[in-house]
Each structure stands twice: as C-alpha cells, then as structure tokens.
C-alpha cells in the first residue's frame, strides 16, 4: 500500500558499554523475582506472605529505573549510533542455524521498555491493594513477574528465536493469570480458550521464522533486514502474511479475536497489564519490528490494513452492547489495537503513529481497566453496569481518573488519544479514503460506547444491589490511577515537534510525504465532529431515560449480534469445533471397529485353532506313543528320500 520510503536496515549496531552493559539486568530482575516467589512461595508460604508482594513490586520498579537510565543515555547519542546489541550467550547452534541470546536496544525497544516496566510497576503497586485478601497473592505476584520478564525478552531480542521465546512466555503467563481463579469453571475455560486460539497464531509466527531461516540462513533482525530486498516479493509476502497470522492471535485481531473477551475472567490488574496495555500490543510490535519484511510486501500490507479496519469496527460494535464493564472495555481494546494495526499496515508513514497510539492507549486503557477494578472493588466484584449508576459521588478519585481516560480514548481535543488517533486517521485518509472513512466511523462509535459506559457507571440513578456500599479504594490503588490519568492527559506531548516520528526514524525509516486530499486541520475537525455525534447519540439514548436493571430482551438484530460478539464464537463452533468433534468421533469409531476388530479377529482365530488341536491331548499314553512312532517313521522316510535322491 505504501510506496517507497524503504526502511533503514539495522546496520552495524554498536556493542553494549556503560549503562547498556546492564541491559540483561532489565530482564533478569523480574525473572529472578518470578523464580523466588514461585519456588519460595511454595516452600515457605507463611514467610513469603508477609513480604512477597513487596519483593514482586520492587523488581519491575528496578527494571524501570534501569530502562530510564538507558533511555537517557540513548538520547545523548548520535542518531546513527542508537542501536546497541549485547551478546549474552549462544542460544542454539545446530547445523547452519546459529541463534545467540542477543539483546537489542534501539529507539523502538526503548519506548516499549518504558511502557512495560512503567505501567507494569504501577499495576504491581495497584495489585498490592486489589489482591490483598487473596490467599494466593504471592503466587499472583510471581506470575506477574514472570509475565514482565517474558514480555521483556519478547521486545529486547535481537532475533526471531528470542522473540518467539518471549512470545510463548507471555502466552504462558497470560494463560496462568486468566485462569488464576481456577476454581471458577468459566475462568479455567477462558484460559484454555486463550491458549488454544493463540496456538493458531503461533503456528503462523513459527512458520514465518522457518521461512526466514530458509531464505536468509539466519533469524537475526540485522541479517534479514540487510537482505530483505533481494529475497523476492513472493517470499516476503508469504512471510508477511504468516507474521500477520501470529500478530492476529496475540493481538486479538479478526479472525482470531474470540479469546480476548473471555480473558476478562482473570483478575482486573491482569486485564489492565496483559490484555490492554502490553501483551496484546505485541502483534503491533511484531509488525513494526518486521517493517523490513512488510516494506517489500505491499500485498501483505494491504491484508494488514483490511484486518485492522475490520477489527477496529468489530471491537467497537461489540463494545456498544456489553453490560459487563470489563467486556465493554475489552471490545474497546480490540478496536484500539485495530487502529494501531492500521497505522502499522500503512507502512513508514504510519509506523511511528502506531507506536504512538500504542503508548497512549497503554496509559489510558490501563487507567480505565484499573478504574473498573476499583469500581468492582467497591461494588463487591459485581461487573454488571446495570447495577452501577451514580458512582461519581461515592468514588470521586476513581471517577476523576476514569474521566481522564475517557476523554483520552474518545479523542477529546488536547488529551493524548486525540493526538494519536487523529494522526492515524489522517494517515489512513491520505493512503485510502475508504479505510480512512472506516477509521473515522470507528472513532464515532468509540465516542458512543465509552459515553454509554461512563453514564451507566458514574451518572444517573443508583441501581445498586442490596447490601452494597460503594466506597473509594485505598490509596495504594488510587495512586497508580492518578499517575496513569496524568499520563493519559499529557502523553500527547510526545508528538510535539514531530519528536516520536524523528525518534523512531532509525527503526522505521523516513516516510514519503503524501499530500493529504484534505488539509490536516479539516480531518481533525471532522474527527471531533464525528466523535461529538457519537457522544450526543449516547447521551440521547442512555442518559435521557432510565437504565433498566435487567438487560432488555426485545432488542434489534444488531444489538443481539453485538452481545454475542458478532457470532465469533458461534462461527468457530460451527466451522472448527463441530467438524473437529465429528472427526474425532469418527476416528474413535474407526479405532474401535477397524483397528480393534483386526486384533480381535486374530485372537478368535488363534483361540479356535487351539480349541481344535488341544483335542490331541487326550491323556492316553498309547496314542502319544503312536504319534511319536509316526513322527520317527516320517523322519526316517525323509532321511531315506534325501539320501536316495
């Protein structure tokens, strides 16, 4: 889709010195935390219960401090020098494959590190309060640390093998944390579903890695980006599509989107960290990191754009009809990741904005998920928004911080989401007006469902259950909310003077300048108008009349479809689960009849022969003697025949 503007290959990264020589420690800290908490917590649960959560929180904070120091160091360097590699050890050396455990630190990794360790630390702090009464809190922090370590491996690896290791690691952590309350059947099932659907995507990613190895003889980003131009467009398109399949699984893009809404069964900090701010955006990271593949595969880029556009509308529509506050936010996450994917699919013109939106979304969505957790905390873990209402007085801090996130996501002028989403819509309009209009429409729907969520939760009348007394959460939970709310408001400054575009240029290359068909200011004005229309519609439909405590059943087809996740599960059931079940039933039947039957027939045959021949054992000595004599006669006759012949 994007023409020209090919990326700068990662050439000759410098080796790590100074503060960069501590790069490994960023991963090692949370990894050590996970090991200590999971093993120690199992051996001495009482001792660890008193300080395990503090230890678990300190680890990502340490990583964050290191990331900040490295970020400042990298800024002081020349632009050409901003790629640092640290070789730790040889990971796999078999035949021609030589993959080292190498860490890469470049502008893209730097931003991701800050997001993951920063938001991760805040969510660890929040979890101290949220999980206070859970008897398995130490294990929870162990899993959270495991997730952070795996996510850091994913984004810091210098080759696809290391990336894949982290990719699977976050999948495991996600599985463990979705099913953390495993006594709930729904949580266990949701964890399994997420795991299985992710395997489909992982198959794509691993095949792409194999293809890269066959084509380039290496899995390192440096080597592949240097040789990408000569590999031919067909190979590159195949590789791009396979990478996209992997990204779809991890980032819940259509058609592998069905797991994300069920994943909300996990504890809310998990939803905020893994299923909003970091892990689900790994697919976007994969596409941006593999920009050297997509730049030579315009067809694959087109598919990325189509998938992204479908998903951003799909998720937004689901978000409109959900009464479960976390599921409404999950639909919104799908939709926002769709925006990021759209930016990433637009090529060098959009990479920087995709990452920009990823960062701002990480802040405001984590903020809102944690806010939803705070609301649930006050409402005795009720998630049904029809049982909320008028909470702004009962929870002032949660309300104010949530409102900041709300204004950011709908793109209220001046807030972070306004800048990031607007840039993506602008770029999309410049590339292809259909996609651009869809993105605009999605922004309007976002305004609608977020306003609906806001009104149902914080405004209107009290619709609380009996015996529920909403209260503000403790300060250990509100502190992260305040920090994230502040970031949701101000993180738009990253765009100031085109800083983020310029910062990412060493990774994503310099975009060609397309003249937009309509001036940027007009696009911005149009976007604000569309969002305002969505908000006004929500106010008219939700705020002006009482919200029923039971979800109405007499609703339009569109609402019913959105409540059923646009029949994503039904489709999977009909197309994959049912035929699969029929196949296995058939195979079991064949095993029972054909395979078992063959062996049973053999048994019957041998038994029959035995039953006949055992009659010879009649117990009469003289008949035995006769058979001996007959046998001897036969032997003698045979000998004679041989000798005479």
């Amino acid at each position, binding site marked *: 889709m994007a023409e020209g503007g090919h990326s700068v290959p990662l050439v000759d990264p410098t080796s790590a010195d100074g503060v960069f020589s501590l790069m490994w420690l960023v991963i090692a800290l949370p990894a050590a935390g996970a090991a200590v908490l999971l093993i120690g917590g199992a051996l001495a649960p009482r001792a660890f219960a008193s300080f395990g959560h503090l230890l678990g929180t300190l680890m990502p904070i340490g990583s964050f401090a290191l990331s900040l120091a490295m970020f400042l160091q990298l800024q002081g360097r020349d632009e050409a020098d901003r790629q640092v590699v640290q070789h730790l050890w040889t990971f796999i050396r078999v035949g021609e494959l030589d993959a080292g455990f190498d860490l890469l630190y470049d502008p893209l990794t730097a931003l991701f590190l800050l997001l993951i360790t920063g938001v991760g630390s805040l969510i660890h702090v929040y979890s101290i309060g949220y999980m206070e009464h859970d008897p398995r809190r130490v294990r929870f922090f162990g899993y959270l640390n495991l997730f952070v370590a795996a996510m850091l491996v994913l984004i810091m690896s210098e080759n696809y093998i290391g990336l894949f290791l982290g990719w699977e690691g976050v999948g495991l952590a996600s599985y463990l944390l979705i099913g953390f309350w495993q006594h709930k059947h729904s949580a266990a099932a949701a964890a399994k579903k997420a795991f299985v659907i992710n395997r489909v995507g992982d198959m794509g990613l691993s095949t792409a890695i194999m293809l890269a190895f066959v084509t380039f003889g290496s899995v390192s980003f440096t080597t592949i980006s240097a040789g990408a131009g000569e590999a031919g467009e067909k190979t590159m398109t195949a590789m791009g599509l396979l990478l996209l399949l992997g990204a779809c699984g991890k980032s819940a893009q259509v058609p592998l989107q069905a797991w994300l809404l069920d994943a909300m069964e996990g504890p809310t900090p998990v939803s905020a960290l893994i299923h909003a701010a970091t892990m689900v955006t790994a697919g976007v990271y994969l596409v941006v990191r593999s920009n050297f593949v997509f730049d030579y595969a315009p067809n694959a880029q087109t598919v990325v754009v189509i998938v992204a556009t479908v998903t951003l509308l799909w998720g937004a529509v689901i978000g409109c009809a959900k009464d479960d506050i976390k599921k409404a936010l999950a639909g919104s996450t799908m939709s926002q990741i769709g925006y990021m994917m759209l930016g990433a699919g637009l090529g060098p013109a959009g990479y920087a904005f995709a990452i920009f939106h990823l960062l701002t979304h990480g802040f405001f969505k984590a903020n809102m998920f944690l806010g939803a957790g705070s609301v649930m905390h006050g409402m005795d873990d009720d998630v049904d928004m029809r049982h909320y209402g008028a909470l702004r007085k009962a929870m002032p801090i949660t309300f104010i911080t949530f409102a900041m996130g709300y204004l950011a996501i709908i793109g209220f002028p001046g807030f972070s989401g306004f800048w990031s989403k607007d840039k993506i819509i602008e770029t999309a309009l410049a590339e292809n007006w259909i996609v651009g209009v869809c993105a605009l429409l999605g922004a309007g729907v976002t305004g609608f469902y977020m306003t609906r969520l806001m009104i149902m939760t914080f405004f209107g009348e009290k619709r609380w259950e009996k015996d529920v007394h909403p209260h503000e959460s403790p300060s250990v939970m509100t502190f992260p909310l305040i920090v994230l709310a502040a970031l949701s408001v101000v993180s738009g400054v990253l765009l100031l003077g085109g800083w983020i575009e310029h910062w990412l240029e060493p990774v994503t290359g310099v975009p060609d300048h397309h003249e937009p068909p309509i001036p940027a200011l007009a696009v911005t004005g149009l976007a604000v108008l569309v969002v305002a229309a969505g908000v006004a519609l929500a106010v008219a439909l939700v705020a002006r009349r009482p919200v029923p405590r039971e979800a109405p059943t007499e609703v339009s087809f569109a609402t019913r479809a959105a409540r059923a996740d646009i029949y994503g599960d039904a489709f999977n059931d009909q197309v994959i689960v049912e035929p699969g079940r029929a196949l296995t039933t058939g195979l079991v039947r064949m095993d029972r009849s054909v395979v078992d039957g063959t062996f049973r027939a053999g048994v019957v045959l041998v038994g029959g022969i035995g039953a006949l021949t055992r009659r010879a054992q009649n*117990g009469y000595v*003289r008949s035995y003697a006769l058979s001996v004599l007959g046998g001897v006669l036969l032997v003698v006759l045979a000998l004679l025949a041989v000798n005479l012949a």
Partner: protein
Amino acid sequence: MDSVTPFIVLSSILFTIGAIGVLTRRNAIVVFMCVELMLNACNLALVAFAHQYGNLDGQIAAFFVMVVAAAEVVVGLAIIMTIFRTRRSASVDDASLLKY
C-alpha cells in the same frame, strides 16, 4: 560282512515286536517289558555294527543304554506300583487324567 545281517534282522524283528507291544497292550508291566525289548533290540544293533566296523564306540554305547534302562526300570516300576496301589489297576488307559 554278511555275518552281521542276521543280527540286524533279529534286532529289527525284536524292535518291531516291542513297538507293537507298546502300542497295543494295556497292562503297564507288559508295556514296560516291551520298552525293554526295544532297548535291547537297539543294543543288539549297536553291538553288531560295532563288530562290523571293529569299533568299540557302539559297545560302550550299549553299556550306557543298559545303565540308563536299569535306572529307568527303578523309577518306572516305582510309578507303576504307586498307581496300582491308589487305583487298583495297572492299565495305562485308566491313568488318563492329564488331558485337555
């Protein structure tokens, strides 16, 4: 050379009589005697051939057969005695419990 032929013929006749006796008689003692007859027919053949070839191996083998036959008689007669005491019969057809 021809001087051996009558002995072999006699041996064959004795062996055949013994074999027919084993197959047809029911009395365990008679069957036993028929077995001895077959063994002795074999001894006769062994000695005759040893004489023909001027070789002592056959004669030594005949002694072995006698020793083994003597040992066999001891065990065999003891078994026949025991069977007779418990069943009041020396018929080999009566002792046919060990079968299918």
